[in-house]
């Protein structure tokens, strides 16, 4: 058995990610789903670190855990009777959905395995922050600006839609 540390960590993270994702998907309790999602995000961030994307990993934690997940939790709690501990969700056409999803997975698996991606090695683990900053201000300036406008619009729009009137 020749497992390197890298592989171990990958499998640990994969287990964390997929296990908590499964909790998220199959749990009846919405809050448990949210907690499962939390650990999924965390595991995905770990995967990013393994893929030499440290900045993206931290942004993942910052935005998903610090932002989106909290929003989701607020969404759950504001859309239920506050004293009701049992915030559950039922499922819809379970069987056909499982069949279709498994079918899609099989196809994806086949595609991934049979395609020759022609990998060209991997770059070293230099900090990417500086380079990402440079790219944001040069090649990706227009997307960056558009994204900021999008965020502003989403902020105003969300506040407007959610307002009681």
């Amino acid at each position, binding site marked *: 058995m020749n497992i390197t540390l890298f592989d171990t960590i990958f499998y640990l993270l994969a287990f964390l990610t997929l296990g908590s994702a499964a909790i998220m*998907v199959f749990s009846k309790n919405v809050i448990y789903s949210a907690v499962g999602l939390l650990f999924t995000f965390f595991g995905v961030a770990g995967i990013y670190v393994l893929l030499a*994307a440290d900045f993206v990993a931290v942004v993942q934690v910052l*935005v998903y855990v610090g932002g989106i997940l909290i929003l989701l939790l607020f969404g759950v709690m504001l859309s239920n009777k506050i004293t009701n501990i049992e915030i559950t969700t039922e*499922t819809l056409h379970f069987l056909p959905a499982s069949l279709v*999803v498994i079918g899609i997975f099989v196809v994806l698996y086949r595609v991934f395995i049979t395609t020759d991606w022609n990998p060209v090695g991997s770059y070293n683990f230099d900090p990417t922050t500086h380079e990402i900053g440079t790219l944001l201000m040069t090649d990706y300036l227009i997307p960056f600006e558009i994204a900021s406008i999008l965020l502003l619009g989403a902020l105003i729009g969300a506040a*407007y839609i*959610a307002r009681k009137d």
Partner: protein
Amino acid sequence: MLAVGLNHYLILSAILFCLGLFSVVTKKNAVTVLMGVELILNAANINFIAFAKYVDNDLDGQMIALFVIVTAAAAAAVALAIVLNIYQRLKSINLDEADSLAG
């Protein structure tokens, strides 16, 4: 157990994608559906970054992932606002009850 390579990440992301898809299709609760969407986005991001590392060998994939994260944040905010609005109108966020378009 093979040494971890590109395919491992791809299969991981495929599983994550399918779980997210399953959640989107089957869950009645709108918030859970949103969670499924986030799973799908994360799966896509893993693919982007894995390809950036193994195939593309530069940072473009990471940049795209960053923009996906930003867009997801915007989408989540708007989607939750819509969910709250639905809740105010229907007193429920179960998607199968929001079926006024049914024929």
